[in-house]
């Protein structure tokens, strides 16, 4: 079985939807997660804190350098992700369609190099 990363892309500074919408989103995502698990497609998933909580560590001239902030200087950041198992891209795209409806943000589908063990 192939594995796919379903990543949720958030736009920095975009207006937060009203609380009741956010609450419904959480409920929809919970339901979606339960379905992924029930159908055996679930590998791993998680939501992330905003990008300004990120720290970058890198090697520079043989020295370890730690800096504040996200790595990419863009307006769009990874907000959360799922790792799923699916037989092919059409199946993964069908899961992604449900994911974007649940979380209300665009979802990018990207294949992993390695297949799932089972």
């Amino acid at each position, binding site marked *: 079985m*192939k594995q796919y990363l379903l990543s949720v892309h958030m736009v920095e500074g975009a207006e937060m939807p009203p609380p009741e919408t956010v609450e419904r989103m959480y409920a929809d995502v919970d339901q979606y997660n339960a379905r992924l698990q029930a159908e055996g497609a679930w590998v791993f998933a998680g939501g992330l804190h905003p990008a300004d909580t990120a720290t970058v560590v890198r090697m520079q001239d043989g020295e370890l350098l730690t800096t504040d902030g996200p790595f990419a200087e863009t307006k769009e950041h990874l907000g959360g992700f799922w790792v799923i198992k*699916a*037989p*092919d*891209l*059409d199946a993964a795209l069908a899961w992604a369609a449900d994911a974007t409806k649940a979380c209300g943000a665009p979802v990018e589908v990207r*294949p992993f*190099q390695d297949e799932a063990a089972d």
Partner: protein
Amino acid sequence: MAVSRPVAVTEIESHFRSEYGRAVATLVRSFGDIDVAEEAVQEAFVVALDRWPEAGIPPNPAGWIITTARNRAIDHLRREASRENRHAEAVLLHLSHQPPEPVGPVTDDRLRLIFTCCHPALGRAAQVALTLRLLGGLSTPEIARAFLVPEATMAQRIVRAKAKIRAAGIPYRVPAEAKLPERLRAVLAVVYLIFNEGYSASSGDVLVREDLCAESIRLARLLAELMPDEPEVLGLLALLLLTQSRRAARTAADGSIVLLPDQDRRRWDRALIEEGHQLVRRCLRRGRPGPYQLQAAINAVHSDAATAAETDWDQILRLYDQLMSCTPTPVIALNRAVALAEVRGPAAALAAIEGLELGGYHLYHATRAELLQRLGRHDEAMDAYDAALAVTANGAERSFLQQRLSAAGEAARR
């Protein structure tokens, strides 16, 4: 043994070209990999070059190509499997459970392959290139020439698309019923785009461009054969045939463009028109009209008229109204206005196209210019022809517009 006759290389090439799609499609199903399939067919071609000139063309060239290519690919896999390649072993095991011959029309592998090539996860340019390469058997340099793209760019486009199919796991199958209308739209759009590229642009290699028209008609025929119950598939084929029927009348001896009203209708291809008409009747009977069927019907009305003056513009306008209700695009609104001008006059048509967002489209300005000209507003017509000239680089279009511009200029001075 049959009496053999000399077989020319070009004859062998033409057999491989016409059977390429079927062979690659069958082998992709067997081996699960496009590159393996293409390489195997290429090797079969080398074998044919060696044997056919002596032994003659086999009685069933398609079967010969598929069997030879298949055996070559299996030989490769056996060598790989003996090196303990688990993937090769798995493919060989899978193969032993499959029928060796291509199966019937309903599950034709070419249909699977065209849906793979036109998968929405691939960009339109990649869809077009892959379809021409894998189903049409055109070489990468040929496709590059047809689309006026450097060969290296086209090669990279095809390699990247094939790599994405493999890495992302784009499936090799006809989509399920629920997804079919949406996925079929992409397939039809690709075939139509190939035709238009061959038909409308007059720059570049003329032969390659005629090849594109022929190839898109071949693809449309294939789709119509494989999906005879989809009225839009029949509609697309009809549209292509009816458009193609006017090809010879569309350019004058000096290469300049001849518009529909001025064409010599005796030069229209009657056989294509007849076939197009039959298809239009057949698909419209199903009562599920769509954009291709309606455009085909409009073309059928045009080809019914023995002279331009006898054109049934009322019916054409009604068809455009129907077309506008299913695909309300600015280009269709513009084309509808041409019919409207005939039925209700140029002023009504001009009012209908004012404000369409088509500033970058030379035919918008040319149509406006034409209507202004008919209203006697020559200065404004000249401005509109200038605007049209500013947005087209095509030589034949430009000289046509220049001509109309100077005609408008003379009328303005009178």
